[in-house]
C-alpha cells in the first residue's frame, strides 16, 4: 500500500475530494431550497401574482408549478453528471493510489 488509511485521509487530494463533494451538494441543496420554498412562500405571500393570466385562461401559477418539478429534475441531473464524470474519476484514481 502506497498510502495508509490515515495518510490517505490526511492527503490534500482526499481533502479536496471531500470538500468538492460537499460544496456541490450544499450549493445544489441551497438552490433547491430557494426554488421550492420560494414557490411555497410566494403562494403564501402573493396569491394574486400567481393568479395573473399569461394566456387567455392559463394562470402564471401553472407553468411555475411545472417549472419547480422540472428544476428539481435538472438539479438532480447536474449532480449525477458531475458525480459520474468528475467525482468518480477522482475516486478511482485515489483508490488505485492506495492499492499501489
Amino acid at each position, binding site marked *: 500500500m502506497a498510502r495508509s488509511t490515515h495518510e490517505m485521509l490526511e492527503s490534500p487530494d482526499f481533502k479536496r475530494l471531500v470538500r468538492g463533494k460537499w460544496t456541490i*451538494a450544499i450549493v445544489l*441543496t441551497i438552490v433547491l431550497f430557494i426554488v421550492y420554498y420560494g414557490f411555497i412562500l410566494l403562494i403564501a405571500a402573493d396569491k394574486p401574482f400567481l393568479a395573473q393570466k399569461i394566456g387567455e*385562461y*392559463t394562470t402564471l*401559477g401553472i407553468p411555475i*408549478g411545472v417549472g419547480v*418539478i422540472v428544476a428539481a429534475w435538472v438539479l438532480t441531473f447536474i449532480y449525477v453528471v458531475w458525480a459520474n464524470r468528475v467525482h468518480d474519476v477522482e475516486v478511482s484514481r485515489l483508490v488505485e493510489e492506495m492499492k499501489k
Partner: protein
Amino acid sequence: MQAAQTAAQTVIGQRNNSAIIFFFLIVAITLYITYWAAKRTRSTKEFYAAGRTVSAFQNGLALSGDYMSAASFLGIAGMVAMKGYDGMIYATGWLVGWPALMFLIAGPLRNLGKYTFADVVAFRLKQTPVRIAAAIGGILTVLLYTIAQMVGAGSLIKLMFGIDYVWAELIVGAVMLLYVLFGGMIATTWVQIVKAALLLGGVTVLTLMVLAQFSWSPGDLYQAVSAKLGQKALEPGGLVTGKIDAISLGLALMFGLLGLPHILMRFYTVPDAKAARTSVLYATGFIGYFYIIIPIVGFGASVLVGRELIKTVDPGGNMAAPLLAEVLGGTPFLGFIAAVAFATILAVVAGLTLAGASALSHDIYVNVVKKGVATEQEQVRVAKMATVVFGIVAVLLGVLFKGQNVAFMVGLAFAVACSANFPALLMSIVWKRFTTAGAVSSILTGAFLSVLLIVISPTVWVDVLHKKEALFPIKNPAIVSMTAAFVIGILVSLMAREPSAEAKFEDEKLRTYLAVGAE
C-alpha cells in the same frame, strides 16, 4: 335518491368484470415473477437486497413504484379535481425530496450500509442501543405508512370491486405476503417495476384521452375548467396560508423521503454508489413526469365528470381518476385503471412489509439478540418469520382503523421519518463527534416529539378528536420536531466524547467517499 342517481352514471361500487379480469391478470403475472424469483432467493443478500444485481434503470422504476402510492395517483388527481390548483402544489411537494436525497445521502448510504439504514447509523456506534432506537424510528414510520395504505386499499377495493372491506384487507395481505415471503427483494423489485410501468402507462393514456377532448391544447382544457368552475380553480386557494405551516409541511415532505426505510432499503439492491445515483435520476424523471401529467387528469375529471358526481361516489374525491376513465373509455378502461390502483397498493405494501421485516429481523434479532452472529439459514428463516408477523399486523391494523380518516397518517409518517430517522442518519455520516447517546436521544426525541405534536395539533386535536382549539398551532410538526432532533443529537454528543466511535471515523470516511470495504 342519491345512490340511484349515481348508479345511472357510473358502475363504480358494483362488481366490474373487466376490473376482476385485469386484476387476476396482474396477480397472475406478479405471482409468476415471484415463482421465478423464489428460485433465486436463498441467501440473506438475495432476500433483503436482490443480490445487489438490480440495474440503475430497474431500480429507478422500482423506486418510483415504491414511492407512487395510491395517495399520489388517486389522491392528487382527486385533489386537483376538487380543489383545482391547490392539488398541483401538493404534487410539487412530493417530488422535491428526491434531489435532496441525491445530494445529501445517496452515495454514503449505499457505501456504508448492508441491508437497512440502521447499518449506517450503527456503523461506528454501539450496536445494541443504536439498532434498537433506529428500529423504533424505522418501524414506527413503516407502520404509520402501512396503516394509511391498508385503510385506503380496503375502501378502494370495496368501492371498485364490490367486495367486503375485511376480505379486501385479507386479499391484499395474502398476495403481498406471497411476494415477499417467497420472492424476497427480487420479487418485490419486479412487482414494483411492473406496477410502475402500468401506472405510468395508464396515466399517460388517460392524459392523452383528456387532451384529445380539448384539441390537444392544455389552454383549451383550462378554458373549459374556467368556464365550468370559475377562474378560481386555476388560482392558489386556501391550501397554503400560514408561512410557518407551509415551510413545516415542505420540510416534512422534502426530508421525510430521506428517512423512509422502504425507499432507503432499495439503495442496497444496486451494485454500487454510481448505480444508486443513476437510479435516483431515473426515479426523479419518472416521478416528475407523473406529477406533471396527473393534474391534467384531475382537471379533466373536474370538467368531464363534474365535481358533484365525484363527491357523491367518494367524499374525499379519490374516485376522480377512475370516474374519468369510465367516461372516456367505458367500463373496460375503468376496470383497467381500477386494477392498476390495486396493483399500486399491493406493491407499496409489499415494499413496506419487507422494510418492516428487515428492521425486526436484521436490526433487532441478528444484531441485537444474536450480537451479529447468525448463520445464513437462520437469518433467512427469521426474516421470513418477521415478514409473516408484519403481514398479519398490517391486515389487523387495516381492519382496526377501518373508516378512519387516514390522510394525516401519511403526513405523520413523513414527519416521523424526517424527525426520527433523517437527522441521525445525516449526522452519523458527516460528524466525527456524533456519539451513541447522541444518536439514541436524537432518534427518540424526533419520534416521540413528532407523534406528540401531531396529536395536539389541529390535524388530530381538532379534526379527529373534535376539541375546540389545538394546543400546538402548526399542522405538521416537522419544523419543530426535526430541529429538536438535530439540536438534541448535537448537545448530547458534545456532553461526553466517545473515543471508540471517533477512532472508527477514519474507516467510515474511507468507505463513505472511496467505497473501500463497501458491500
